[in-house]
């Protein structure tokens, strides 16, 4: 009995020290991690705003987390949407900006756990550039065969389906807003 108590106590001590250490490191790094995320988001929003000013922020619904209006001279010219979807490595988040008629101005991949070298390519600017200009008269390409060069996304079809589906939903959501 005494033997078991001793063993349990040793394991408890190791766990307690480990937990304390982790708590300290977490306390030091958590504010920095939050600041990084905020900086990344605001930089991404500026990147894809297409030269318009960011207006008010509204609640979204469904796969749209939030909507920010893009304004010029107090007139709504478009919207920035934060969209969620599913990639190969779990949920993905992206921000995308649209003109009021649903045409994609720009998009950026945010949080994701895609495979480095394959789905991770969606973080690069050329990946989203493949969709820019679509959404109004021409629909957002949702099949690899609709792309100018399908080999660019080959090997990461699940990521492509997740991204293109989210962008298409966003375009339809913007159309449903009707410029308001």
């Amino acid at each position: 009995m005494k033997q078991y108590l001793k063993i349990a106590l040793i394991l408890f001590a190791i766990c307690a020290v480990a937990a304390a250490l982790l708590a300290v490191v977490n306390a030091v790094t958590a504010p920095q991690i939050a600041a990084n995320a905020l900086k990344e988001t605001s930089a991404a929003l500026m990147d894809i705003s297409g030269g318009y000013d960011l207006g008010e922020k509204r609640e979204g619904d469904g796969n749209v987390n939030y909507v920010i209006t893009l304004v010029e001279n107090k007139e709504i010219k478009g919207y920035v949407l934060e969209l969620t979807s599913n990639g190969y490595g779990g949920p993905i988040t992206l921000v995308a900006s649209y003109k009021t008629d649903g045409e994609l101005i720009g998009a950026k991949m945010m949080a994701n756990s895609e495979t480095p070298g394959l789905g991770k390519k969606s973080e690069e600017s050329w990946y989203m550039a493949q969709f820019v200009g679509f959404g109004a008269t021409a629909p957002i390409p949702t099949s690899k065969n609709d792309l100018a060069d399908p080999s660019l996304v080959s090997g990461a079809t699940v990521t492509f389906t997740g991204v293109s589906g989210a962008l298409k939903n966003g375009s339809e959501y913007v159309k449903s807003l009707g410029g308001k």
Partner: protein
Amino acid sequence: MSHTKELTKGIFKENPVFIIMLGMCPTLGVTTQVFNAIGMGAGVIFVLLCSNIIISLLRKVIPDSIRIPSYIVIIASFVTIVEMVMHAYVPAVYSALGVYLPLIVVNCIILGRAEAFANKNTVLDSALDAIGMGVGFTLSLILIAAIREILGAGQITLINLSESARVIISIPGLKDSPIRVMTLAAGALLVMGYLKALFNWMGDRKAKRG
């Protein structure tokens, strides 16, 4: 065994990837780009060194019956620390390594060295063993990644922190028409198989001669 032997054995004679065949999951998973291999290797060297030192220090304190849970707690703590620090201060590396970073916890090399070496040897030998094994692991990863990236994408990515901080060497000819299967999962298994065969052949030849 001398101290230098502890350090160098991990690089060829007891190479963790090709001879002991430990840590196959990250070996096959992250080796799509040379940069990922370097990042993964650095993470493993750090965690392996810290865990080997701590486990060697505690080898007389930790009773045999609870050694595995103790090792796992120690290893998981170091991995979580690496993850949080990287997330906070080098977010580019953190996002490049993605899901593989937390997987260092279940990397068999780390638990394997704790169980096979650090709990029986002195702190100095354990630290040398960790560095040797870690470097051997990293070099193996870089070798596999280089072969896969050169053949599969026609390039070598040395640094890839952001779109502005990046060093990529392109290989003319292969860049335009790469053998794309090499960057996919099947390519990892192919390269691994051929390299394992090569190492076996070299080992056999050495044994026959000796």
